């Protein structure tokens, strides 16, 4: 049957005009979303010889975060906190007598762009080190560049572990500094059963595998395990399951917007933090605001740093950050790790008395910094740092307050070698 519209509304003569409109709109859309994702024409520097210029009275370092795209809001705060540390160091006289010159790049929430910009920073900007990355995929994309061009990346976000690169310093938590301490806390509280809820991708699946091994070894029953597609917003069935399972606690590895729907449903179904607490590992101060403090108050999170950590160093950090970027801006765990990264680099350079990558690697072991979360120390063998583990409770004011901490900094163990129950994990 011929299309009646084509017969009664002859518009073919407008074909050209009509073609312009869709093309323009699609292009505009692509431009807007890909804003800043322009390819850079930097030449490939496959030779590993460093081009870092140490003859001037300033030294270049790079900052590479998503300043546009989906991840921007999280990563801009981390880039800000990197800049805060650099400004402070410059004001105090710089590193080895040289001012730090920050080269800011935008990874645009796209792993491919992260890899390209990393190469540009190393090969054509000739930076001494790069501070950047958030998602595991951005780190995995940048890793080969830093290794083949022999440069240094400081990566500030908690991640799933099972990695150690000689060219990356991991300043966020690995599993035994976040997830395992949280499990120890629950066990100590007398929790004997858990329900696992997570987004369906690498991090939650890996984390839950570790949690299940831990549970087996510690006599904790796993009542159920549920994954939802990333971005899923319907949690009524899962919450029904959790409610009927009557577990001691829920371990939540959901990411992003799913948390909003999950906690709303959880509260509306009459489940309470006092009876069945939810422990989350991806919800920091900023996310609490989006979920709504009233929906999540009383629930627990596991991190290494909260804005409320009560140390003089942190009070100064929070005050300095708010003074520079706005009184209503909260500080969070990845921001603190980024801030510490810059100082760790500075302290390592000063110990090595050199900006050369090989010298920094050689000098790294044992370098420490009094960070807002407490003293952190670089471990030269696996390039992670010691971190204080904390469990916090979310209060109605939207801030997170420490209810337990490990007392001393926990030694990083990215491959969980020191745990007998983790032998089966590969």
């Amino acid at each position, binding site marked *: 049957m011929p299309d009646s519209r084509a017969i009664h509304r002859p518009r073919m003569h407008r074909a050209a005009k009509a073609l312009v409109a869709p093309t323009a709109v*699609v292009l505009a859309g692509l431009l807007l979303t890909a804003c800043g994702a322009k390819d850079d024409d930097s030449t490939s520097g496959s030779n590993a010889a460093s081009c870092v210029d140490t003859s001037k009275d300033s030294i270049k370092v790079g900052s590479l975060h998503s300043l546009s795209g989906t991840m921007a809001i999280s990563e801009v705060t981390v880039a800000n906190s990197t800049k805060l540390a650099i400004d402070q160091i410059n004001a105090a006289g710089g590193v080895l007598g040289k001012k730090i010159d920050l080269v800011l790049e935008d990874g645009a929430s796209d792993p491919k762009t992260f890899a390209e910009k990393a190469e540009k920073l190393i090969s054509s900007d000739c930076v001494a080190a790069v501070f950047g990355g958030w998602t595991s995929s951005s780190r995995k994309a940048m890793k080969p560049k830093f290794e083949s061009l022999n440069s240094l990346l400081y990566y500030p976000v908690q991640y799933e572990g099972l990695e150690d690169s000689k060219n990356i310093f991991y300043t966020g938590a690995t599993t035994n500094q976040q997830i395992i301490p949280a499990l120890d806390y629950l066990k100590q509280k007398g929790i004997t059963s858990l329900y696992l809820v997570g987004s369906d991708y690498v991090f939650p699946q890996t984390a839950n595998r570790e949690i299940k091994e831990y549970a087996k070894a510690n006599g904790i029953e796993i009542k159920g395990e549920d994954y939802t597609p990333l971005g899923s917003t319907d949690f009524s069935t899962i919450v029904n399951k959790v409610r009927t399972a009557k577990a001691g606690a829920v371990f939540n590895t959901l990411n992003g917007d799913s948390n909003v729907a999950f906690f709303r449903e959880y509260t509306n179904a009459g489940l309470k933090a006092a009876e069945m607490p939810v422990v989350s590992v991806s919800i920091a101060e900023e996310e609490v605001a989006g979920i709504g403090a009233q929906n999540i108050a009383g629930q627990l999170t596991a991190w290494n740093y909260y804005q409320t950590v009560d140390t003089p160093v942190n009070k100064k950090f929070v005050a300095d950050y708010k003074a520079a970027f706005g009184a209503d801006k909260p500080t969070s765990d990845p921001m603190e790790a980024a801030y510490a990264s810059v100082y760790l680099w500075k302290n390592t350079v000063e110990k090595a008395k050199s900006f050369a990558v090989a010298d920094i690697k050689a000098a790294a072991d044992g370098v420490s910094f009094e960070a807002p979360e407490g003293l952190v120390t670089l471990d030269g063998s696996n390039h992670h740092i010691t971190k204080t583990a904390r469990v916090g409770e979310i209060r109605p004011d939207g801030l997170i307050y420490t209810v337990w901490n490990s007392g001393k900094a926990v030694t990083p163990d990215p491959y969980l070698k020191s745990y007998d129950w983790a032998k089966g994990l590969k």
Partner: protein
Amino acid sequence: MDVLIGQLFTGLSLGSILLLAALGLSLTFGQMGVINMAHGEFIMAGCYTTYVVQKVFSSAGVSLMVSLLIGFLVGGLLGAALEMGLIRWMYDRPLDTLLVTFGVGLVLQQLARDIFGAPAKNVLVPEWLGGGITIMGAVVPKTRIFILVLAVVAVTTLATVLKATPLGRRIRAVVQNRGLAETSGVSSRVTDISTFFIGSGLAGVAGVALTLIGSTSPTIGQSYLIDAFLVVVIGGLGQIKGTVIAAFALGLLNSYIEYSTTASIAKVIVFVIIVIFLQVRPQGLFTVRTRSLA
């Protein structure tokens, strides 16, 4: 037993959400034959409308009611603008509308991100919708009951408008035979714009309702768009009755399968069932002869 009842309500509630998301689409896609990929972003516009309205009214209850109205207008105006600015030039080319509206959707998403920021915004739920009520041992959140009622009201209103008003008669006339309708003095331009206004307005209403259960973030629309298209296709193009039945059938199917498996597996099984169903009945549950894609 309470599990069975609980999942029944979960299914009905999921169905009512699917219905709200798909209702507008059944007008613009089912009846007009336009593949509007920006429908999800119109839903998002409804979400952000609620967020903005809530900044004005201190009472979350009042703001919800006002938002339903303004959300309809915002969605409707966006839809009318899209129709007048772009879609009118390409009614006879469904693939082009797909591309164009996809682009519009991307633009709207980035616009929302630039204006409101990427993380979810917190929309307050009125006191009287907080918590749930216990029905035969199952706890049903009040927000879900509200959405169920809202979906029923929206469907009845839409059906009445289509059946009993002059505008509805014109819409049906244009859908069934555009040429004849025009010859009889019906302005198809005005009818096209009105249909788009109503269909997109319903997306706005769906957005307002979704703030009660989910997040208000730039990508919220995407999570509902595919499901909404499924509902319309399964229901049969151009059929409100089919849309209603398909929405609740999918909701119930999903909730019962998900309970006995997992969310990811349930999605796969439901898709397989849909594929098999469309092999048997490619025209959907019900169909009328229209100038549709088929």
